[in-house]
C-alpha cells in the first residue's frame, strides 16, 4: 500500500510536470511554423505619402503603372504597381530624402517627380504641394502666351530698329 502510494506520488510529482512541459514545448514548436504562415496586419495612420497624377483638365491618370524609388537605392524600385481609379499612389518612406515617383500611362502621358520625405535626423517633411489654385490655373496659360508674344515682339522690334538705323 505504502509502495503503491509512493509510486503514485512519483507519477504525480515527477512525471506529470515533465509531460506537461513536453506538451507545452511541442505546442510551441508546432505553433511557430504555423504562425509563420499567418498574415498579420498593422495600421499606421499618417505615415504614408500619397501622390495624385491628373491632367490639366482634372482627369485622373487612373490605373496607370507606377514606380517608387527610394533615395537609399535609386536603381531598384522600392514599390511597383498601379494608381487607383482616382490617380492616387501611396507609399511609406523608410528613409528620409527625396523619393522619386514615376507614373506612366499607356499612351505615354505621366510624370516623374521627386517627393520630399523629410530631411535627416527626423526633420519634418515638406508640406503637401503640387495642387493648383484657380488663379494659377488661369495665370499659367496667360504667362505662356505672354512669353510667346514677347519672343515675337522682340524679333519684330529688332528688325524694325535695324531697318530704321542710319
Amino acid at each position, binding site marked *: 500500500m505504502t509502495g503503491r502510494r509512493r509510486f503514485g506520488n512519483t507519477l504525480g510529482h515527477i512525471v506529470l510536470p515533465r509531460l506537461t512541459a513536453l506538451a507545452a514545448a511541442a505546442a510551441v514548436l508546432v505553433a511557430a511554423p504555423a504562425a509563420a504562415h499567418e498574415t498579420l496586419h498593422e495600421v499606421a495612420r499618417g505615415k504614408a505619402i500619397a501622390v495624385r497624377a491628373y491632367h490639366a483638365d482634372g482627369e485622373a491618370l*487612373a490605373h496607370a503603372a507606377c514606380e517608387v524609388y527610394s533615395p537609399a537605392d535609386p536603381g531598384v524600385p522600392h514599390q511597383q504597381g498601379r494608381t487607383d481609379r482616382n490617380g492616387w499612389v501611396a507609399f511609406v518612406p523608410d528613409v528620409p530624402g527625396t523619393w522619386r515617383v514615376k507614373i506612366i500611362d499607356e*499612351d*505615354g502621358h505621366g510624370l516623374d517627380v521627386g517627393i520630399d520625405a523629410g530631411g535627416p535626423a527626423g526633420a519634418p517633411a515638406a508640406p503637401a504641394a503640387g495642387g493648383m489654385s484657380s488663379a494659377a490655373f488661369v495665370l499659367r496659360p496667360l504667362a*505662356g502666351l505672354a512669353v510667346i508674344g514677347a519672343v515675337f515682339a522682340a524679333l519684330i522690334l529688332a528688325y524694325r530698329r535695324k531697318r530704321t538705323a542710319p
Partner: protein
Amino acid sequence: MHIPDGFVSPQISLPAYAVAAPLWAWAARRHFGRAAAESLPVIGSLTALAFVIQTIMIPVPGGTSTHLVGVMVLALLFHPLVAFVCESLVLLVQALFFGAGGITVLGLNALAMGLAGPLAGWLVWRLLRRFSEKVALFLAGWVATQAATLSVAGALGLQHRLDASYFPMPLAVTLAAMMVPSLTVAGLVEGLYTFFALSLVRKANLRGVAA
C-alpha cells in the same frame, strides 16, 4: 502626346537633340531672318493659337482625352521648318510653365510633333492639292496627327526595347493606346482645324501671307 522627362534615356534624347539643334539653327536663319519680318506677326499669332489649342483637352470615348497640335497651318502657309521652330517654342513654354513634356525631351518632342507631323502633312497637301484643295487641307491635318503620334509611340517603343526601366510599356500597348484616339478623334479635329484656320487666314488677306 508629349513625352515627359524621365521616360526616355539619354540614348534617345541626346541623338534627338543632335538632330534638332542644327535644324533649329538652319530654320531660324532661313525662315526667321530680316526677310521674314513682315510675316512675323502672323507667325507669332498662329504660334500663340497653337499654344492655346494644345492646352484644350478633347475627351475621347473610353475615359481618356487628347489634344490638337495646331502647327500644320504654319507648315502650309510658310514651311514645315517654320512649324518646327514654332512648335519647339510652344514645347519649351509648356515645359517651363506647365511641366508638360520637359527640357531633356524637348528635342525629341519637337522632332515628333513639330517636324515629323507637319512634314508628312505638307507632303500629303503637295501631293493632293491638284485634285482638291479642301480635301488636301483636311488630310494634311489628319496625316500630320498620325505621323506625330506614330513618332512619339515609336520613340517610346524603342525606349522600351533599349531599357524598359525608363518606359515599361511595350510598343504594341503604347501604339494601341495612342493611335486609337489619334485615328478616331484627334486626326479628324486637327484636319477640320487645319482646313478652317487656313481658309480664314487666306480670306483675311494678311500682310506677310502669300495669297
